[in-house]
């Protein structure tokens, strides 16, 4: 028995569970892949349509040039950050309960970053002119900072996913053997870098993982801070804030933890991982989510209080637009759905169970997307000189691309777990050997 594995599960079963998506994906797998693939396909068609006719097919206009696309960029990079941070912090604090979650969190971090990183390119009317950024990039431009930060974070994220995966790739190499097919066998052989699980190899690997885990935390903070400065250094109503960087970082963690919970809940159900991912895992994550909800509410209150108290000429109409004007339904939907409802669901023991926590996470996720939209668009729509308020309404192209991006994340994760283990076998087996006194710290019975 251990702190990580269920009392009913032997350590050796972990391998079977972790390889389950590779060995027996089930018929539901192909149905889900088909549905998600169709949504992604629709998004690809929409993007090619935009490529052909230009940004005129979107709802973007002269003033609101950042609509759905840049909101999506902030949102998806944010959830990526949450995934990486959750895994890195729990790894550095050596929290044993992280073991069955870390693989999904780290994969989600990389996949969400890939999707989020595409949006600045999608937002370009002429993506073929991307080379200008390389030929004529200015070090003083936050756009350049953003590209550099995202690229660096992507490299670190890939490393953070790959290093703990090495022993598990070796398991695939050894357990699947010649039956895996030539290409896959070569892939396992190459990526496992000769792992045999000796104490020397474990030491080398642990050292590498720890260094990357330490690096990835400030990197992720910097990525989201740079994203925040993209807004903060621009003179627009609602963006002129000194707390934007920590506000964005906190918001990213908030939405990221919610995404980890949702992803874990979905894969747990789909691949029958209930024996390894139990109610207490969700409860631990929900406590983090609760703390982040309260912290984010505090930041938001602080932001609006200082702006609303002064009601400068540009901020006043913006606040009115958000709180009592045309966008008020969306704003209050975010406050109630994205902040109040999750707190209530997590605070009460009766709803602090897997369905309740999953609903709370879904509410947070949708609310945080809405919040990103409410940060990006009204600030641009509000005129700086006496003029009409610009109206932005997304076109079908933007909606299709947004839905495709949302579908691409679970799709890419499903495809990834068809090749690599969904659970961190190495870590789970490692923690399975922990002394019995740690096991007594976790509840004995399933409360589901």
């Amino acid at each position: 028995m251990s702190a990580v594995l269920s009392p009913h599960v032997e350590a050796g079963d972990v391998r079977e569970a972790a390889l389950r998506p590779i060995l027996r994906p089930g018929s539901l797998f192909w149905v889900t892949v088909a549905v998600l693939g169709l949504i992604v396909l629709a998004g690809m068609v929409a993007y090619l349509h935009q490529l052909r006719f230009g940004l005129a097919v979107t709802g973007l206009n002269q003033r609101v040039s950042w609509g759905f696309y840049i909101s999506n960029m902030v949102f998806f990079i944010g959830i990526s950050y949450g995934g990486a941070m959750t895994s890195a912090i729990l790894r550095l604090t050596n929290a044993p309960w992280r073991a069955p979650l870390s693989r999904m969190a780290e994969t989600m971090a990389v996949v969400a970053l890939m999707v989020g990183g595409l949006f600045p390119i999608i937002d370009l009317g002429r993506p073929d002119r991307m080379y200008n950024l390389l030929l004529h990039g200015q070090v003083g431009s936050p756009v350049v900072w953003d590209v550099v930060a995202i690229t660096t974070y992507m490299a670190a994220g890939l490393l953070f996913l790959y290093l703990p995966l090495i022993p598990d790739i070796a398991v695939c190499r050894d357990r699947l053997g010649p039956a895996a097919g030539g290409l896959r066998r070569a892939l396992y052989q190459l990526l496992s870098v000769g792992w045999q699980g000796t104490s020397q190899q474990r030491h080398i690997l642990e050292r590498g993982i720890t260094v990357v885990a330490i690096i990835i935390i400030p990197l992720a903070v910097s990525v989201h801070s740079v994203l925040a400065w993209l807004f903060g250094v621009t003179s627009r109503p609602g963006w002129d804030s000194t707390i934007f960087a920590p506000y964005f970082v906190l918001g990213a963690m908030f939405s990221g933890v919610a995404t980890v919970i949702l992803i874990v809940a979905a894969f747990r159900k789909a691949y029958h991982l209930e024996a390894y991912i139990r109610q207490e895992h969700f409860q631990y994550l929900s406590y983090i989510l609760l703390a982040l909800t309260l912290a984010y509410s505090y930041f938001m209150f602080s932001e609006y209080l200082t702006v609303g108290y002064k009601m400068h000429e540009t901020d006043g109409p913006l606040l009115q637009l958000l709180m009592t004007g045309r966008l008020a339904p969306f704003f209050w939907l975010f406050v109630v759905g994205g902040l109040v409802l999750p707190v209530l669901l997590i605070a009460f023991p009766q709803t602090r169970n897997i369905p309740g926590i999953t609903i709370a996470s879904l509410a947070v996720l949708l609310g945080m997307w809405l919040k990103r939209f409410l940060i990006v668009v009204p600030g641009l729509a509000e005129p700086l000189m006496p003029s009409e308020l610009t109206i932005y309404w997304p076109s079908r192209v933007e909606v299709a691309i947004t839905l495709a991006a949302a579908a691409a994340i679970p799709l890419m994760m499903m495809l990834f777990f068809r090749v690599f283990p969904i659970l961190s076998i190495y870590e789970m087996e490692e923690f399975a050997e922990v002394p019995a006194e740690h096991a007594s710290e976790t509840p004995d019975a399933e409360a589901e």
Partner: protein
Amino acid sequence: MTIRTLWPLLAVVAVALWLRSDGAAFGDGPAGTVLEPLESSTIGTDRQSTILSVRLLNDQDQPLGGATVTFYMLTTVFGERLMKAGDAFTDATGTASLIYEPTWVGDHTVVVRFPGDAQNASTQTTFQFAASGPVPVHENARFGLEEVRRWLPFAVGAALLAVWTTLGLVIVTTVRGLRAATAALEPQMPLAPVIEPLRPVPFGRTLLALLALLALVALPGAWLLPRQWGGEEVSLSTESGGLTLGGLEPQGGATADAPQKPLAVPLDRSVQTMVFGEGGQLVPGSADLPADVALVNDRVLILDTNKGRILTVTPAGEIVPVLETEAAQEGSLSGATAMAAHEEKVYVANSTSGRVLVVDASGRLEEIIIPLVPKGLNPLTLAGIAVTDRGEIWLSDSGNHRVMLLDRRGELRSVIGEGIPSAGEQGFNAPAGLAIDRLGNLLVVDRLNGLVKQYSPLGVFLGALGEGHLALPRSVAVDETGRVYVSDEKSATVAAFGADGTYRGSIGQGTLQAPYGIKVKDGLLYVMDRLAGLFAFRLQADESVP
């Protein structure tokens, strides 16, 4: 090493050279073609735009007409950049002008380029102007801390280099370490022992098939979709007859490229309002982007928006001021864009100050009316005015998408509009010009919906006209027989409609450049063109023909 092995490298170098050469061609061609900057009008407080002008001369020193030149603004916030301001055509004198709305206060550097053609070499010129207004409600940051900023990129670069180096070291040492440890083991134990190999479900071929399907469906799918699939067609171009008007684009029901049916309406007379000197600068008495015209008694009054004046036209065809105001004074006319005549007075709606000024025919400021209206989501932006027979004032508040009826004291009587953009019968999307017909009904230009809506004196919706024929309507006028005329900034024409609302055709095609305010009196259609001047077209007496 053969050329075969080097060709990828050569290809990359060739592409890089080709990309580098892009944009370096201006002024590199044979000498001769010249772009002469003409002095731009300096922006004063409360002014909204300026005119940028250049003259294009060929190698014979002759004006080059019909050519396209492109104006750029040099921005320096994050390094020097050229921001495209717009394209403009040169006229018969070789002059190309562009209305530009500055977005910051201070010096502006303008770069103008002529790309060249078969006969004429490419060329470019640079000039500057200063903008002291309009006063931005949000100040642009002034960048300081030069010393810190100089070193910051190096500090950040060093940190970045450290991160990348660490990541590189981690991957290299880990992979090499793991491999070395395996190599040390190899003599003792075999690599990758396979115990009861498991058989995974085939996956690679299915995935490849899926990707092939995506490519097969996505590419033709995108080409089969009509352009309108993305939603209402929204043009991102701001060109209008060679002039960039900036700011607004038609939305919703507005038609970006309304079909034109030119009408043969004779031009009775015209007055040049903006007069340029030899160097291309505005002469002292010249108007600066006038916006509207009003007819009081026998006087034709012109609203000189940027200079805050009201002008009149002498019998000799000259323009002389009858009222001059300063931007800072309470009764300033700077920024006013609409006016209406009533009982030998003219009522001017000032969009900047949100006030209505009453001026008599001699140019004496009689009264300032402050509209006592509820605060909207945005500052009050008066874009149109009409006065009823009883002296009540209709005002359009473009910023808050409403039209308001005020009494003589400025107190609110009634409101049409929802305060937010709307396409409904009782709503507008940026209402602009107003007019009152012979029955006292109100005509409202619903600018971004591309319509003119008609309301009874009590505000009951009666109907709309112009659907499919108006791209970016601005002002409306109605004659004694009920025919309706609508100035359209996008098509640079005035659209004519019968009393029953049917589209008759367009007036002023090829003559007008930036039509704004319009009025009809005594069989003449007066069109205030912000660039080209004041035009009076002779309308046909026959009701069926404009």
